[in-house]
């Protein structure tokens, strides 16, 4: 999926970290659209999974991760360790997905 090694642990098994290059980050703000909102309104009567939102958020998170990876590649890294995700709702119906980690060079 991404051509860098990504982990959310501090080390990568079997590899040694040669250099730390610093923090890299990627974010995206996404809004849901009306069609999905109507479906969500219906789902709010019977309950259950909101597939539209699940997809929306996982796509957005992937986008944030990709941006983070691009930044890491520019720095010349071949891995990002200790990756963390965070989500915040900016306004009603829109959320910011944020991914950050430490870019490193592995042996």
């Amino acid at each position: 999926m991404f051509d860098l090694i990504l982990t959310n642990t501090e080390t990568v098994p079997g590899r040694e970290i040669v250099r730390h290059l610093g923090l890299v980050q990627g974010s995206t703000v996404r809004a849901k659209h009306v069609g999905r909102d109507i479906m969500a309104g219906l789902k709010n009567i019977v309950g259950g999974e909101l597939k539209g939102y699940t997809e929306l958020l996982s796509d957005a998170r992937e986008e944030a991760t990709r941006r983070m990876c691009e930044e890491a590649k520019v720095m010349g890294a071949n891995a990002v360790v200790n990756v963390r995700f965070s989500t915040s709702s900016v306004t009603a119906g829109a959320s910011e997905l944020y991914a950050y980690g430490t870019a490193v060079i592995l042996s």
Partner: protein
Amino acid sequence: MSGLITVAVLLMIGLVFGQINEQNHFKRLQRDEEELSDILTVNLKTLPLDMQPNAMMVSGNVVVAVDYFKKIATGIKQLFGGRLRSYESLVERARREAIVRMKKQARDIGADAVYNVRLEFTSMGQQPRQAFGGVELLAYGTAVKLK
């Protein structure tokens, strides 16, 4: 009067379908969890030394909506405070589902353990001042192959 009827009908639909949905979901979760029980999930940060090189991040997320019955029942319950069982089960479903999806992804890439599992919770409101419409649970971790 017609407003009351609408609310009553919605409550009934919410109660019946919400319960059915929830029971089916719990059954499915039970089955999936048994199927995926061979994949180890740990929330330890440090990796043991005896594993194959390289690792990959895996994640799973799910948004679960509250049903109408839960919404109204919770509104009434909040007058008295105490335990909100209906929301407990909602969050439990979401959490277990997210972990199951993460494990499925780990299995798909041939890993047999997930380290440093983290869970992230987001509550999704529909309108600014309205009670929340659902919860999002994200589970993520580092998938590795043990030797």
